């Protein structure tokens, strides 16, 4: 099952539509990381709303995507984790540490907007060093 990867402005959106096998997940990871560089995007959104099960491999793959994308210059945010899935993950100790997660796609876009703005702000102001 191929996961469609859509481009929306500066961001890539991967919307998972159904349960994925481990091979599908690996494929998704490779495709996303390849596209991040190719399209010079600043953010990646992985939408997992449709998943009602999340195993350790899936969680690890999502984490890997986030870390790899960061190395390639893009922020990653996971959106749409269901309440039940979230609690099950926590009980299994799969907490996606260091990876941003938000409620849904809308929040994800807002989050990335905020992040990229922050980053441009960090770069832009060229103040004389030192503050007093």
């Amino acid at each position, binding site marked *: 099952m191929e996961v469609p990867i859509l481009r929306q402005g500066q961001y890539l959106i991967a919307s998972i539509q159904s349960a994925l096998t481990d091979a599908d997940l690996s494929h998704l990871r490779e495709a996303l990381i390849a596209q991040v560089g190719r399209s010079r995007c600043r953010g990646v959104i992985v939408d997992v709303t449709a998943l009602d099960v999340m195993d350790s491999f899936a969680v690890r793959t999502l984490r890997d995507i986030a870390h790899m994308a960061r190395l390639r210059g893009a922020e990653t945010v*996971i*959106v749409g*984790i269901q*309440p*039940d899935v*979230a*609690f099950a*993950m*926590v*009980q299994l100790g799969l*907490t*996606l540490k260091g990876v941003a*997660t*938000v*409620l*849904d796609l*809308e*929040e994800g*876009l*807002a*989050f990335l*907007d*905020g992040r990229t*703005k922050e980053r441009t702000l960090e770069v832009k102001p060229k103040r004389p060093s030192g503050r007093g």
Partner: protein
Amino acid sequence: MNTKKGTTVMTRPSEGPGSGLTESSAGLLRELVAHLRQNRTQLREEWARRITRAELLTAMTEEEIFAEATAVYDNYVEALETGTFEALQAYSRRLSERIIPRGVETDEVVGIVLLLRDVLARSLFTKYQDNVEKLNRILDSYEPAANRIANTVAVGFVEERERIIRQQQEAIRELSTPVLQVRERLLILPIIGVIDPQRARQLTEQLLRAIRANRAKVVVIDVTGVAAMDSGVANHLVQTVEASRLLGATVIVTGLSPEIAQTLVTIGVDLSEMATVGDLQGGIEEAERLLADRAPPSPPMRGELPPETSR
């Protein structure tokens, strides 16, 4: 009370055993009922008087006691006559429904029924004092029925009480976990009372659902009302915080009492991931700060609402 439900049999060392007795017991019972009907007013008054003297049913006025006594008396006699207890059961259930909210206790209800039994037995003694043998036989048919009636009323009362307790427990369980929205994107979850594993789970589920339903960004969990916390509950709290983060909400825990703080550190629960603030007020202030930090990026999606400029 050492009688079993339903089958109350009191054998007494009587002169007239077995065979002859069962033949005439129906007749004796009829005679008994006729006697009780005849002396209704007098026995009823005597009973009500003894209830007042024993200081039972203090929550009710004398007129009320008399009215209830009349109804109980009639039901009592009817149950004696027919040997069926359904009507009495139904009546005792209705009676319990009426008097439980007024604070009538189990011992009072058992007490008044036993008093009635005593009053009636006394009147039988008086009536048949010249004929001991007949008195014995009358008592043989009266006592099992009377005991069974006492049992029925008491059980009815206790069952009603238990039903009310169950109902209240249910209500408390539902009430005990309100997730409140204070303002847009900010939820408060005040936890009060003892947290057992089942309740902890329910709390988490409700919170996670509410986060999604209200699109919450920040949640303040206030544990001021929690008296004690063991490692199980503390770990559950940590898990709840983690799960909320997966839904994109930041959790602030407030109101950890000195005792709980000491316990948690002593038993070594890792709370480093958890944002904690001293009291609820501080927690809400902190939450508003977080919301203010995050607010700017969201407006442009929908054009309906202009960003709030004046207020």
